[in-house]
């Protein structure tokens, strides 16, 4: 199974993948939910701090890339810190049966929702059985 596959069965693999070794810059792998329905695929990701205009979602050669630079800083001197914001970056390989042209991305309250409908041919079809 490819490391960037849609369904990740083996969550605790330790092989560094492209996302981690990509560059010396720090990246955060956003947590995602991927839900498939008959209509298509819905991806939900936590990207707090990412601005709408800087967010990039693209599909190229079956690879979905989400990247969002984060530029937010706090006023004053930091005194206590539990999280550090960095750019978000994550890739998935997604099946060809999806209609990438009709994909819709939406960012609301720090959550990215991406809807990719299935191509007509890939939708389940009900076949009527006529009793003769």
């Amino acid at each position, binding site marked *: 199974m490819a490391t960037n596959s849609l369904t990740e069965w083996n969550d605790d693999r330790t092989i560094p993948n492209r996302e981690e070794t990509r560059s010396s810059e720090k990246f955060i792998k956003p*947590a995602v939910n991927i*839900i498939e329905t008959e209509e298509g695929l819905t991806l939900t990701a936590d990207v707090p701090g990412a601005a709408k205009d800087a967010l990039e979602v693209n599909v190229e050669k079956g690879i979905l890339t989400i990247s969002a630079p984060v530029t937010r800083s706090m006023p004053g001197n930091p005194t206590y810190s539990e999280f550090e914001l960095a750019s978000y970056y994550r890739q998935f390989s997604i099946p060809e049966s999806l209609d990438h042209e009709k994909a819709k991305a939406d960012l609301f309250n720090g959550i990215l929702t991406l809807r990719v409908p299935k191509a007509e041919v890939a939708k389940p079809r009900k076949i009527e059985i006529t009793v003769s």
Partner: protein
Amino acid sequence: MANWDVFRELDNLRREIDEAFRGAGIHRRPLASAFLSPVTSRRFPLVNFSEDEGHVYIDALVPGVDPKDTDLTVLRNAITISGERKPFIEKRGQIVHRSELGSGKFSRTLELPTDINPDKIKAEYRDGILRVILAKAEHAKPKKIEIKLS
């Protein structure tokens, strides 16, 4: 040793042990990318503090939490952030490929580093981050003292 309280000591010990083991165990996502996910237990939202001469700033990571459903209360020098992150709608007949986002009710109380003026608190929510701006109480602000030459 005048006010040594065995119960308080035990409580402190328990807290220290909790702190030591927090985050230990399953280190699947070393970067804190999973907010309120099943792997990160407790500690939600994550916060950052900063301060300048007159203010204390708190940034809390609350993606997907409706600011209308978030409660912010201040009592003396403790601030409580509570609310709920709505579960992501589950439909029938869907296939879940990945489920890394957590949901549920949360409440976190934070102790403020200085006394603050409870009438001057502002909170704003943008892109999943809640920023609380608290004005320091007059007596907690640094005061400049003139030095006179004699």
